[in-house]
């Protein structure tokens, strides 16, 4: 058993399609400065830094060393972690491991991306196997579309069901001043948006964003000193399966089911739907907002549309999902999963302003990456 660890600070940039005004270093610096201010810490208090992005999206290697002017890691320990879409949650979990080891008191986790600097789909295709998959693999959107095709066929899910997920997330984003897309949409808007790859239309899929997030993890010895209401890490889980696209189960998402099961078990959660107060889930397209909450175990397979249509996952519902507007409103890939972690922590700290869910005691953040792998982090107001 390691030391108990809490999140004591969170900072994010204002996200948009293209931040012409800053280079990558300057973007990172913006998030780090805000996280330090939020935690009421100085850079000298930070013992180590964990950073991640998708190297080839910006064509930059060794982002650890490259980033020091932005990250503040000059002459400090800094480690790079890159795991695709889960990068943000993985840097968060790696920072948690650092502090839990007892060797570090404050560790800064940073996720960032400037998607505007390359062709995101082309860059994502280079994540697939060069010999076997790259010829037919068509990037994130079509690989999610094939997943949707299997799920829709099995459970009779409609495109309108999925559109309801977009309506929720985009509606919530109106309350988030940092979100990239801040206009509410209707089911009709989604249905009438251009078909990109069947059944995914323009408003079913996340945008490509430029942005950065920074989260400070602190040991139990220090957390209470500067932060009146820290967000304690109750459990984490990381699950990878395989990068063979042909080995994936397109009807369920086993990595998320397995990660959620372990994270709930470690946190002592028996009825997640009842016990959790808020979720920030890495769901890059609308159908994930149905299928993947079934894999988490919030309802039986094929039953998610009912929860959505009944408003159970809206603000004010039984379990609000993505008060920030989620990934459908902002997707700066290396930062995206760390935004989920930071947003849940902020909900527990009670600092979420217009997007605040009342009295959050327990929340869940997830990361999703590449070949359908998953990270889960459970955060709580109570010291575990």
């Amino acid at each position, binding site marked *: 058993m390691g030391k108990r660890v809490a999140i004591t600070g969170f900072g994010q940039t204002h996200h948009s399609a293209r931040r*012409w*005004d800053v280079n990558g270093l300057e973007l990172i610096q913006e998030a780090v400065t805000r996280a330090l201010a939020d935690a009421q810490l100085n850079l000298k208090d930070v013992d180590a830094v964990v950073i991640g992005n998708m190297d080839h999206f910006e*064509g930059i290697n060794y982002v650890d060393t490259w980033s020091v002017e932005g990250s503040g890691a000059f002459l400090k320990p800094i480690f790079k972690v890159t795991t695709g879409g889960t990068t943000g949650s993985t840097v968060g979990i790696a920072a948690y491991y650092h502090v839990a080891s007892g060797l570090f008191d404050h560790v800064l986790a940073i996720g960032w991306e400037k998607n505007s600097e390359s*062709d995101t*789909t*082309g*860059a994502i*295709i*280079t994540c697939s196997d*060069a*010999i*076997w*998959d*790259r*010829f*037919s*693999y*068509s*990037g994130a*959107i*079509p690989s999610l*579309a*094939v*997943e*949707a*095709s*299997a799920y829709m*066929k099995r459970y009779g899910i409609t495109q309108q069901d999925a559109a309801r997920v977009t309506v929720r997330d985009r509606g919530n984003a109106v309350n988030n001043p940092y979100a990239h897309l801040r206009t509410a949409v209707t089911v009709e808007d989604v249905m009438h948006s251009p*078909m*990109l*790859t*069947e*059944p*995914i239309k323009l408003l079913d899929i996340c945008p490509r964003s430029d942005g950065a997030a920074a989260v400070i993890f602190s040991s139990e010895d220090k957390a209470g000193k500067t932060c009146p209401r820290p967000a304690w890490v109750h459990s984490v889980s990381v699950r990878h*399966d*395989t990068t*063979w*696209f*042909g*080995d*994936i189960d*397109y009807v369920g998402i086993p990595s998320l089911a397995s990660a959620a099961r372990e994270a709930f078990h470690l946190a002592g959660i028996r009825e997640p739907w009842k016990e959790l107060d808020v979720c920030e889930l890495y769901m890059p397209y609308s159908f994930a907002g149905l299928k993947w909450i079934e894999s988490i175990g919030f309802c039986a397979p094929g039953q998610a549309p009912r929860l959505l249509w009944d408003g159970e996952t809206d603000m004010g519902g039984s379990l609000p999902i993505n008060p920030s507007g989620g990934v459908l409103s902002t997707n700066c890939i290396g930062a995206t999963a760390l935004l989920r972690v930071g947003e849940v922590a902020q909900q527990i700290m009670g600092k979420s302003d217009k997007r605040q869910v009342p009295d959050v005691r327990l929340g869940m953040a997830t990361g999703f990456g590449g070949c359908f792998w998953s990270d889960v982090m459970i955060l709580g107001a109570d010291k575990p």
Partner: protein
Amino acid sequence: METRASERNPSLLAMEEIAHMPYHWAIGLDGSKFFQEIKEREVLLGIRCPKCRKVYVPPRLVCGPCFVKMDELVELGIEGVVEAVTLVNYPFIDPDTGDRRPVPYIYGYIKLDGADNLFSHIIKTPPGISVQVGDRVRAVFSRKKKGRIQDIAFFEPLPKRKPRSRASRD
């Protein structure tokens, strides 16, 4: 290399570069056999795990879940069932060529007869014919074979069976 200015604020610049970066990737023993069998006999090979008995395509050295070496190559059918499919309709840069990939096209995951996992490829259909999950398809091989995945030119749909005859097969 070219420098461009922001339309909104021309004082902000960005540099553009198109890089050419050659690679050569080893295909490995079993993968090489897969392509050689296509070249010589137009046959598709899989490999069976000695522990869980699962048959994988394309053949590879290790079963990931069991973490054991595999060496039992098996011949698969060139037909299979579509398990997941989409029609791709938006333009993007193909990193293999540097050019835009021609759209629209259909790509999907096919369960080949005799295999337990799925095989990823493109599916070509006659005009007006769509492909659904559950449809049967067949590999069409390229005339010139170069030891690469495009030696299978594409998969094409098979005529749909009547429900009764399929039920009797099962």
